[in-house]
Structure formats: C-alpha cells, structure tokens
C-alpha cells in the first residue's frame, strides 16, 4: 500500500489553524470512512481531488453521521440532534460548498439541513465529476482501461427519483468510452437495491426474495462486466447479490469515481 500512504488529505481543523479556508468540504460519510469496500471509493475520489489540485478538506474525526438512517427509521429526534450538531461544526468552519460520495448524505445535507438553518451548496460526486469533465479538467487519453467495456449503471434512488440526477453519472461513464447498457428498469423507474430507508441496518421483512437479488438479476441480464454505482449502500447490496450468484469473477461492482480514477491511471 505504498501508493496509498502517499495520500495527502487536508483536514479542516488543521487548515483553520493555519487560517486557511478551502473552497470545498469533502463529506466522506460513514460508509466512506468505515466500510472496507467503500474506503477504496473515498481514496479514489481523494486521488482525483489531489491530482486536479482542487482546494478541499475533510472534517476527519469531526465528521459524524448526517442522521439520515435514523430519520428514515422514524427517529426524528436523533436525526435532529445529529443535524444540529453537524450544522454547528460546518458553520463553525464557514463552509459554503460540500461535495459528498454518498447520495444519502447528499440528500440530507442538501434538502433537509436548510430546515434546521444549515444552508450549503451541496454536490454529489457524480455531478462534481461531470462538471470537471465539462470544464475539460478530466480528460481520458485513448479511452483508458474501461474503453469499450460493457457497463450498466444502477440508479441510486436517493440520486435519481429523490433528486432528479440521472444523466450526470451516465455522462461520466460515456466519457470513459464505456459501452453503456441499460437495465430493464432504469432512470425514474430504476429498481431500488433494497438498502434505502434504513433497510441497510436491519434484516428485510419476510417475503419471497430479497430486493437486491431481484436487482442483481436485472443487472446480470444486461451481460455487462461492470455494474457501476454511485452509492455505498447500492454497492454493498449489488456486490452481495453478485456473490450470491457466484458471478464475482465475471462481474464487478465499481463506483463511477473508481472508474474515472482508473481511467486516469491514478
């Protein structure tokens, strides 16, 4: 992990001590911080931010759960405790812009924190990457390692229906010269991975099968060798589904930011 050790991640508190204020806060999220698989996504995003010399910082140990899972499970009290505390930290650093790699954090920070006085310009990494591509800051020479690869994109409910973001992640993948194929249910009719609404944190209710099994079979039916996602929970559910089908040697689940980083040889 030599390369990883070189990862230089600016932390808000340290910059503030030096009287510096970065342009953007990267909100990592709990999955991006603790989940072994999603940590790789976090690191891939950091590599891109560093490579492009973007002025950013993370909260490090000062970051806490946005409160989304508590809120969706009905515990409004706990949600508001988290949100109010987070807003104090964010406002303490006078943060204006936030980018995050988690659609759940994104939705809560963008749509729900304003009700509690937290107003920020919040961007999900899919839109952030698309903007970098549009500005010409990300250019993939000769297509990169995903050129011509059959990729299917799984819409996260909290990006898609919840916030109307369908095209940005697809444009990013097209820019990588990937051969994009759609699942039977996509965009506004995309099927959930099964983890939203705090389902990630409990067993599913009794039923005929798991939601992630159904979604996985839709993904596998496309014949794609890569299932692209843009959400930590979707990634977990689809990876589990593919393992269940014993297809993990043929099909991999990758976050769009990993695909971009790899195409850039980062």
């Amino acid at each position, binding site marked *: *992990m030599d390369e*990883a050790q070189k990862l230089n991640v600016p*932390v808000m508190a340290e910059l503030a001590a030096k009287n510096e204020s970065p342009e953007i806060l990267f909100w*990592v999220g*709990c999955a991006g*911080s*603790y989940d072994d698989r999603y*940590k790789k996504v976090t*690191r891939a995003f*950091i590599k891109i931010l560093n490579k492009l010399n973007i002025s950013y910082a*993370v909260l*490090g*140990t000062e*970051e806490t*759960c946005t*409160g989304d*899972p*508590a*809120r*969706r*499970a*009905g*515990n*409004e*009290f*706990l949600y*508001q*405790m*988290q949100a*109010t*505390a987070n807003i104090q930290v964010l406002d303490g650093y006078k943060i204006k812009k936030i980018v995050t790699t988690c659609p759940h954090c994104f*939705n809560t920070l963008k*749509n*729900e924190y304003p009700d*509690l006085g937290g107003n920020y310009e919040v961007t999900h990494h899919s839109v952030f990457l698309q903007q970098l591509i549009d500005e010409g800051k990300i250019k993939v020479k000769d297509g990169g390692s995903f050129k011509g690869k059959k990729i299917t994109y799984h819409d996260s*409910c*909290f990006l898609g*229906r*919840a*916030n109307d973001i369908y095209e940005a992640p697809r444009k990013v993948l097209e820019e990588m010269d990937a051969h994009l194929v759609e699942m039977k249910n996509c965009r*506004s*009719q995309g*099927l*959930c991975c*099964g983890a*939203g*609404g*705090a389902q990630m*944190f*409990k067993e*599913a*209710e*009794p*039923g*005929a*099968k*798991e*939601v992630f*099994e*159904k979604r996985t079979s839709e993904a596998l039916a496309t014949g794609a060798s890569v299932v692209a996602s843009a959400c930590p929970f979707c990634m977990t559910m689809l990876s589990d589904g593919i393992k269940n089908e014993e297809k993990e040697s043929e099909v991999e689940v990758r976050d769009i930011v990993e695909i971009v980083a790899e195409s850039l040889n980062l």
Partner: protein
Amino acid sequence: MAYLQQIIFLLILGTAGYFLWKRIILIRNNIRLGKNLDRTDNHSERFKSMLLVAFGQRKMFKNIIPAILHLFVYVGFVVINFEVLEFIIDGLAGTHRIFAPYLGGFYNVLMNIFEFLAVSVLAACAVFLFRRNVLRVKRFTQPEMTSWPLLDANLILITEIVLMLAILSMNAADQVLQTRGVTGYVFTGQLVFSGFLVPGFDGLPAGWLVFIERFAWWFHIIGILGFAIYVTWSKHLHIFMAFPNTWYSDLTPMGKMENMDSVTNEVKIMLGLTTDGAAAQAPEEIGRFGAKDINDLTWKNLMDAYTCTECGRCTAECPANQTGKKLSPRKIMMDVRDRTEEVGNSLVKNGKGFDDGKSLLGDYIIKEELNACTSCNACVEACPVLINPLQIILEMRRYIAMEESGSPAQWNIMFQNIETSFSPWKFAPADRFNWAKE
C-alpha cells in the same frame, strides 16, 4: 300537466344536488381532520403541475396502452359534459335539443364528436373490463383488490358502458323520428355512429320510438346524476380530486422529508441553543410525534387518499411488494381513506371529539408493512395524480420510533450506535479518519 315533466326533472335535479352537496361537505370536513399544512405558495408552479399532470395526463403516458384507453374515457367524460348541459337546460325548460337551432350545422359536427367519444368510451371500458377480469393484469388482482374495490371497479366500467349505450340509442331513435317528421324532433343532420343502430329502430311505430328516445334521455340524465353521487363513495372520485390534488402537490424534491418543528424546539432546548423567542413559544400543544391515526396526518395526506383510484401503479413499482413483502402503497392509501371515512362518520354520529378506540396503526396498517419500505420513492414517482404514500409510511414510523420505541431491534441498535459512536455502525469515532492512513 304541460309542466309535469319539468317539475319532476327539477325535483330529481334538486334531490341529486342535495345529496351530492351533503357528500361534498362531508368529504371536505373529513379532509380537514388532517393537520395543518401550508400549500398556498407558488401559484404558477401549482397551476403548471395541475395543467400538465391532471389536465394533460402527463404521468399516464409511461404506459402507452392504458394511457390511450384512459385518454378516450377522460376526453369523453369532459366533452360529453357539454351535452349534459343541454340535457339539463332541456329538462328545465321543457325543450328538446335547445342548442340545435342556434348552432346550425355546427350542432351536427358537435353531436358527431360526442358520438365518436361515446363509442370510444364504450370500447375503452370494454377493454378495461377485459384487462381486469379476463387478462387479470397483476396490479388489479392483488390482495387488497377483492370484495368492494373489485366490485366498485367493475360497477364504474359497466355504468359508463350503459350510459353510453343510452346516448347512442336515444340518438338512433331520434334520427328515425326526425326522418318521419314527428313534431318536436328537430333536424340534427346525419349522426354517424348511432346511424349504425338505425336499422334496428326503423320498423318500430312512432309511439315506441318516442318512448325509447324519452326513456333513454331520462335514463341517461338520472344515470349521470346518480353516478355523480356514487362517485363520492367510490375510487372513481379521482375525476374531481385529481385537480386539487395536483395543485396542492409537494413541490420540493422527492427526497426531502418534512421537518418536525416540535422536535426542533426540544432539540434546541437540549443542546442549549434556544433563543428567547423559541423558548417563549415552546410547548404549544405538541400532540403526538408522528402518526398513529388519520388526524396525525396532514390534510394533504387525506386528500391523497380520497384521490386514489386504486390503479396500483405504486404497488406494481414497489420493490418491497415485488419481492413478496406485505407492503403495498396502494393498500396504505386505501386504508387511510377507509379509516378517514370511518372517523368522519363516527364524528357525525357521536359528536365532535368522540374516540372510537380504533386507529390507523394496528387496526388497518401493521408494522410489518411499514418496516418493509425502502423509501425509494418508486410509488411516489409512479402515481399519475401525485399521491405520496411514502410520507404516510414515514410519518407512522416516526410514531412507532418516538412514541412507542417499537422499531425493529436492529434499528434500535443502529440508533444506539449513532448516539454513542456517531455512526450507524459500531466503530470507534477516533477511527473515523483511519482510511487516509491505511
């Protein structure tokens, strides 16, 4: 004697109007059992939403075959209402086809359009009956679609077919009477669709034809009036409710949950953040947290329930339902309406403030249904009239979590983890930044 028919007509119209009015008031009061919610803002966006979604049927066109069939019935319903206007004026004034002399040749064009629509409505309803009862399209045969909801659906379709047949028979008889020059039967010109029925009426004596024509006329107008009253008990109420419901729809992104201001006050007090203003206005009748019964929901949630036409697009798109879980967003809406009617009727009977000892949670909707929701918004996206079942589900989860502490055990553990480790998983907060060093 000359005025007898007009008097009878006026009596029928008045009686129908009275019962219809009573139902409208009751439903309006029932919707007002819900909690306050301000939806008076942004008139231009609201108008656009109503115009595109209700009037323009935009969301129907995700599924093209039912969309076209539904469009026939919808346009038929809207346009044929102009003919009903003529019926009512004729009924009150004792005239026959009062518009004909004024509109001249255009009356013939209009009548032919009406007939075309009548035939379209008839055909579409026949196909709908076939889809429901023979093809048994899945969303029409799920567990909540038995007994009354099933009968209701079929009654609506059959009634519409019968009403259209009445119009066509009336016009056919009328045409034969016109050609025979019977007094009172003004010339309408050739009517194409009822023209196909003319051979069946041609050989009948004039007396019979007048009887058929009059019978069909009375049958149609009484049928329409009766249907209008019936609709207030039926899922078919969407023909009216779709308009206010799209007007008052939620204009914020689907992902946003409504903030609970009552909780905000408490949180601020706990964190020592209260300003004097907030403390002063603090505990004004908080009621309960979340929703146990219909009066804990907002009036818009209840309006949603009255708007639901039980088409089941929400349930068909629901990932939980697709994988065999108990949750069906349509059933949530049907339960809310049934319970609202029950509460409303009980208040009329027993007076204001009466508690019948039942509630939406438990007696209608159980936790297993609510716990299966992934909050994916597929149901919200699917609804052609902008109903939001998700809001109701989440509101009921709030009650279970905050008033009963009755959430699933694994969620309670997740809550604890957030409280103690600031993450839904039990990891040490000090390790949160380790990813950068690994």
